[in-house]
């Protein structure tokens, strides 16, 4: 069984929370006490149907306003897979939450209200999913019950969306269209007889069929050292292990590696997971590696295969998604956290703001406000070891930390 994390996006009232509630309900993931609470509250509000959005809208403010304002995580599982849904809000002003939710997801659902069709928000959601290079995207055309399950309406919306697809940067993104009614439960988990013209999978069937190769890009292994383990006990007197997570590919015992930044070469001697030795560590495994030679490595350093080096540089240009109310401007200093490595960075130049909606209207600017997306160049106080984001989703991304507030103020995708 695998874990699939799905980011959801939609405008206010597109029925996103209802869709998630419907998925939980139809996969029998809602427990009887939760269902009871939903029934009780729906009745109090005078609805003659079950308001599934109550299953996900967790914060008091959200219940009051009837909207979702932060990233919430919802869990359910089938016999085949475990699902984590990162439910992100769809307001214009909440781009930051969408980027956040999408940054850890392997798939996404873009929700469109069949009565409204492709709107500016749809463009934004798609732009962000594409910017973050989410490999699998489902365009769920919702509220089909309110347009009499019209094939014509569905096709018109699909055609509009396909125009957007021509403009996208990441062309390998796989896109699937599904007509649904979250309220009625059509094509969400179960097939419906209301859309005989649609022969594709239901939303859940689509995700169930996804394979690892549909989700992850082939990449090159990167091993940032997270923590050095030196027990100094009698039994493990000389043990010197480098703990960390393997990104992008596999590492095996006997692999010739280069340590960065020292450029020292060595060979992988052992790979431990807890107290067991393994021959190969796959991507995303948290292991401890020992080397044949005694070389000096500390947190933030990186082990890579000798024949596959990343770029080692003190400057780069990146697409920045800005998330703070204080503006980013040329000359400002921030901490760049690239994986587990932290370096001080200075903004060299803000090139131009990118319209995150495929309108093509890029604008000159020297400062970024909350939710802006722009090209920015940085200079660092020491080199980092990076790949381009388009080649490596993990080693090509970073976060920006404000040196005064310590808050995470932006996300970056290296070009």
């Amino acid at each position, binding site marked *: 069984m695998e874990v699939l994390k799905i980011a959801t996006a939609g405008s206010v009232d597109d029925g996103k929370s209802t869709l998630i509630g419907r998925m939980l309900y139809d996969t029998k993931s809602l427990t009887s006490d939760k269902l009871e609470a939903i029934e009780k509250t729906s009745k109090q509000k005078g609805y003659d149907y079950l308001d599934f959005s109550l299953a996900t809208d967790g914060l008091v403010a959200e219940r009051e306003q009837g909207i979702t304002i932060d990233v919430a995580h919802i*869990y359910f599982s089938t016999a085949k897979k475990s699902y984590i849904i990162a439910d992100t809000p769809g307001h214009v002003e909440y781009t930051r939450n969408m980027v956040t939710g999408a940054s850890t997801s392997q798939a996404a659902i873009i929700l469109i209200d069949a009565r409204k069709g492709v709107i500016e928000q749809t463009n934004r959601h798609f732009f962000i999913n594409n910017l973050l290079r989410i490999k699998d995207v489902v365009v769920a055309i919702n509220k089909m019950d309110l347009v009499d399950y019209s094939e014509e309406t569905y096709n018109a919306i699909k055609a509009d969306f396909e125009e957007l697809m021509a403009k996208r940067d990441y062309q390998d993104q796989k896109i699937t269209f599904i007509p649904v009614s979250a309220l009625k439960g059509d094509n969400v988990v179960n097939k419906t007889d209301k859309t005989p013209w649609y022969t594709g999978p239901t939303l859940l069937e689509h995700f169930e069929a996804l394979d690892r190769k549909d989700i992850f890009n082939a990449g090159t292994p990167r091993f940032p050292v997270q923590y050095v383990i030196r027990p100094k006990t009698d039994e493990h007197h000389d043990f010197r292990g480098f703990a960390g997570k393997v990104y992008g590919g596999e590492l095996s015992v006997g692999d010739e590696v280069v340590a960065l930044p020292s450029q020292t070469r060595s060979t992988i001697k052992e790979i431990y997971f*807890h107290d067991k030795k*393994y021959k190969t560590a*796959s991507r995303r495994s948290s292991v401890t590696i020992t080397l044949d030679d005694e070389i000096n490595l500390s947190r933030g350093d990186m082990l890579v295969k000798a024949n596959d080096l990343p770029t080692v540089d003190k400057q780069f240009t990146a697409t920045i998604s800005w998330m703070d109310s204080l503006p980013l401007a040329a000359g400002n200093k921030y901490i760049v956290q690239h994986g587990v490595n932290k370096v001080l960075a200075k903004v060299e130049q803000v090139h131009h703001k990118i319209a995150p909606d495929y309108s093509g209207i890029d604008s000159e600017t020297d400062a970024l406000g909350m939710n802006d997306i722009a090209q920015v160049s940085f200079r660092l106080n020491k080199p980092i070891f990076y790949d381009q984001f388009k080649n490596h989703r993990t080693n090509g991304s970073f976060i920006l930390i404000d040196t005064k507030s310590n808050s995470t103020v932006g996300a970056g995708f290296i070009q």
Partner: protein
Amino acid sequence: MSNTSTELEVTPSIELLKDTSHINALENEAIYIIREVAAQFEKPVLLFSGGKDSITLVRLAQKAFWPSKIPFPLMHIDTGHNFPETIEFRDRLVEELGLELIVRNVQDSIDQGKVKEESGRYSSRNSLQTTTLLDAIEEFKFDACIGGARRDEEKARAKERIFSVRDDFGQWDERNQRPELFDMLNGQIELGQNVRVFPISNWTELDVWSYIKEEQIEIPSIYFAHKRKTFLRDGMIWSAEDGIVFREEDEVVEERLVRFRTVGDMSCTAAVLSDAETIDKVVEEIRDSSISERGARIDDKRSEAAMEKRKQQGYF
């Protein structure tokens, strides 16, 4: 614990370490998070309640640092209303693993007049823990507290970050949470602030139980079906043993075959009817269960927004 690292023989293996299984992926993520805590903070602590989630955390921490010992202490905020089985278990675990254990008592906070004991039918020491916890954080200058909370437990928890910053007053500002991107954890804080860390955020109750089964982790006996003197109230089963839970005279005591799904403060943790005497049966029961785990926690039922309010005040 079934085995300590020093006892176990290291066997050379040629298998591929896979991350394809669901539990395995969650385990790898949790180990990564725990290592980040050790690397980014000066004085971390693992909050240990004796419950299955914190026992799971201890196992994960063991794995994260092997062959070194866990490089931070455990701390138990003792309400004085714990199940005796939990306390025995706690002391044995700590001794076996050679860990440092700090205990701070809610009773002391009451004696010092810092908090007032609740009275009446639904009285509980659960919310009183907050003051004792915040005092202990200040006393030891802890900058990171690792906890076993999971996002699937409750709606407000679903929005909690993995690294969740608390201000000088230990409070959670849910409106102003740091965005958490990729798997990069930002632990930068100012003096006086601390971070609550939740390595098993993405685990469900079933995941925890499956892991306990797979890893053969020992847990306190009250998690398994046993005969207990109990009484019924509001459709829930309460323990009538040890005199901790307030009982009206007309509430009839009866012996029932029960087990506990969570082992919080006795005064707010109800039992469930169960004949699951083994871990296999417990996993099976959870898989088929239709009531959520916190459904047996009266403290969440006080109001729709109960958990969110307690969290803002500094509750775990």
